[in-house]
């Protein structure tokens, strides 16, 4: 368990010393969310209607921006070899890397989304649901994205390949994430959507480190 926290601490420390990489995704999210209301016009009904979808798409693309670097730096400087050769289970260490990645690239999106949602005139209960759906959905994105990042490690043009690999898998998360806010606004209740997001989160957290480990071992051969 110590090794797990060591990996999390190391990756967080690295993220804070390479702020530009972390901030690029966040900045992208803010820009996208800020430009849409300007382009569409001040019609409150329209904005309220598209708000959850736009914010979710923005968050999804923003979290994808930082994915290619999840394992690449470790691979380049040889630390990945040390992770693989460590006596600790590789899956646990990879889970630590995914958690650190989510903490710096997913959690800030969750915190910012309600603020940006104000531009879309979303009511307060919808803002709360938006944050909740992102809180459950962005870790799924990180877990699935990590598999894509591990599979494309060392491949030229890996960034595009990751998008091709993981975007189809992101779709259900997007549908139920944005759908949760929609369902709440229309009075249907979002409980079913939240349950499904949770049902996606648990297997993703469980299987992703395992799949990543297998892909990383192959990448190092």
């Amino acid at each position, binding site marked *: 368990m110590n*090794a797990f926290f060591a990996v999390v601490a190391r990756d967080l420390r690295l993220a804070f*010393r*390479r702020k530009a990489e972390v901030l690029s995704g966040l900045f992208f999210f803010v820009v996208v969310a800020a430009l849409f209301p300007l382009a569409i016009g001040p019609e409150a009904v329209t904005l309220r209607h598209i708000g959850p979808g736009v914010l979710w798409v923005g968050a999804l693309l923003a979290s994808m921006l930082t994915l290619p670097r999840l394992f690449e730096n470790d691979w*380049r*400087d040889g630390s990945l070899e040390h992770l693989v*050769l*460590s*006596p600790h289970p590789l899956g646990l260490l990879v889970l630590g890397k995914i958690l650190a990645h989510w903490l710096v690239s997913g959690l800030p999106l969750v915190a910012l989304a309600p603020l940006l949602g104000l531009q879309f005139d979303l009511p307060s209960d919808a803002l709360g649901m938006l944050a909740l759906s992102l809180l459950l959905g962005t870790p799924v994105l990180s877990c699935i994205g990590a598999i894509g990042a591990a599979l494309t490690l060392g491949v030229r043009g890996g960034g595009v390949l990751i998008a091709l690999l993981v975007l189809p898998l992101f779709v259900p998360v997007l549908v139920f994430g944005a759908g949760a806010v929609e369902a709440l606004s229309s009075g249907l209740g979002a409980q079913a959507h939240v349950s499904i997001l949770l049902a996606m989160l648990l297997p993703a957290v469980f299987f992703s480190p395992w799949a990543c480990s297998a892909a990383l071992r192959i990448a*190092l*051969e």
Partner: protein
Amino acid sequence: MSQLQAIALSCERGGRPLFAPQSFTLNPGQAMQIEGDNGSGKTSLLRMVCGLAPTASGEVRWGGQAIAEVRHAFSRDLLYLGHSLGLKDELSALENLQTASVLAGHPVSHPQALQALQSQGLEARAHLPLRVLSQGQKRRVALARLQLSKARLWVLDEPFVALDTLAVHALQQVLRNHLQQDGLLLFTSHQAVDLGSAVLPWRLGR
């Protein structure tokens, strides 16, 4: 009983064998220097011994058992230092050492890490991010890892590259100590290394 055995290890690159099947045994207190021309497969051999690269044929045994079966015990006993040092440029030497030691399964304390850096002549730079250090100094940080290591088997790929004369002597001393404490050492080097009588030269060729 820690004994490293390689049994008919061979390696293929692009469908062609890189070297003839290699078999050797390394006992505690012994070192083996692998020599060979550029591209003769020295690094590949070391990576196969560590279990990083798949073997085309043959197997590696640690204490008489295939390393795939005793992976946990083997990785606790193994320290591998490759061409890329596995150090983070953004972290300080001290942070690098401490993280590496936790990951290797033998955590070291702050004073221990500091002392290891001191013996490499890096105490003044212990807290600087690694990117401001020179190539040789980075190598020394990696070698400080050796001093802190409790691993029985050291697998070092070109450990003497980019070191000045003084550092080469210091490293030889560290390696000699390791061998005296019944450690095992497998390394590649193009230069002659003075480690006493315990070194078996091993020539890689087709």
